[in-house]
């Protein structure tokens, strides 16, 4: 029994709560979005819900490890693997839909990632896992199938990450207003953070690395919050604060009378 496991459980719980809260806030803001952005909005809602659904059983898993219950630990690991293996699906849909603009194409390509996720789960469940190895900070499992790990790395990790990086590059190469750059780039960086560290979390065999990966997933979730709801101080610092103004009603022309006062201008 170690307090490190409780810290781990707390971090997982924080990720769960913040992911669900973010998904809920996004879903609630549906009215504010145009029909064109709604498919991307719902894919984000699903993505963050899947992150929450992955870390809810993981929280219970950590508590089970703390209480010395390996059967519950294994059960929760298997349960967490289900939403985790489909995280790439809404992510791929989101990026493709935003770039290409076709719901059909995005849906078909996403279906491919459903297949990747399903085959990963099949190999994971048929070959099983080895563990748990409970340490001071974490409870670790080893995936007993090389094919599952390869599908995991190639299908679920490399391609979606490459898509995010490509999209980020596209945004950085384009000249656009600061606030739009912030609004488009930061959610992507946040998603990339969460997605990549979730992978590290799942396959690492080093307990401290798992803890650190989970801290970064939490940071990524907070970052996503900041992307959509930036606090005033951050807006001022980044120069993206919207200037509050009222339109000047009188439609008269400005006369450059001051020319005589400033003859050099």
């Amino acid at each position: 029994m170690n307090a490190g496991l409780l810290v781990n459980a707390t971090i997982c719980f924080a990720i769960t709560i913040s992911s669900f809260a973010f998904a809920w806030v996004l879903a609630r803001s549906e009215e504010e979005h145009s029909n064109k952005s709604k498919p991307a909005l719902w894919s984000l809602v699903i993505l963050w819900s899947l992150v929450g659904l992955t870390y809810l059983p993981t929280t219970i898993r950590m508590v089970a490890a703390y209480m010395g219950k390996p059967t519950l630990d294994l059960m929760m690991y298997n349960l967490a693997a289900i939403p985790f293996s489909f995280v790439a699906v809404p992510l791929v849909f989101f990026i493709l839909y935003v770039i290409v603009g076709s719901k059909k194409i995005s849906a078909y390509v996403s279906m491919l990632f459903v297949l990747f996720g399903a085959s990963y789960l099949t190999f994971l469940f048929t070959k099983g896992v080895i563990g748990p190895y409970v340490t001071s900070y974490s409870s670790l499992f080893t995936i007993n199938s090389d094919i599952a790990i390869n599908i995991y790395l190639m299908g679920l990790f490399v391609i979606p990450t490459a898509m995010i990086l490509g999209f980020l590059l596209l945004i950085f190469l384009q000249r656009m207003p600061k606030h739009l750059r912030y609004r488009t780039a930061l959610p992507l960086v946040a998603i990339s953070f969460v997605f990549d560290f979730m992978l590290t979390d799942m396959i690492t065999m080093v307990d401290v690395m798992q803890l650190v990966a989970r801290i970064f997933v939490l940071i990524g979730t907070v970052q996503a919050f900041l992307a959509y709801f930036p606090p005033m101080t951050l807006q001022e610092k980044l120069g993206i604060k919207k200037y509050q103004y009222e339109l000047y009603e009188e439609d008269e022309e400005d006369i450059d009378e001051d020319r005589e006062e400033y003859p050099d201008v």
Partner: protein
Amino acid sequence: MSEDIDVELEKEVAEFYQSLGIHQGPGDIQYRLILRVLGKNEGKITEFSEIRKYTDQFADKGSIGSKMKTVFQLEGLVEKVKRGGYIITDKGITASNFLKDSTTFYKKNKRMDEIIERMP
């Protein structure tokens, strides 16, 4: 090199530049179409009638002839080689290339606008 002229696209691009306050040059549909026809016929004589084929729906009587004289000939973008026949100069080619860049800029900008529109 022969290339098709998409009148609707040229109109769209011209309207985009007009919306930015640029009413001359890239924002002028007549200028765009004349230069596109001239650019298409690089190294060959462009007949006035060929230009009119594209510009008639956007031009009042006499306005194309006037534009050829007061803009294209005056600035040395074309040289008149016979009655109703013009040939594009090197400077005209530069203007034509600029026009192509303005179309690319429009397309890039439109694409990015659409991406941002789809971003929640």
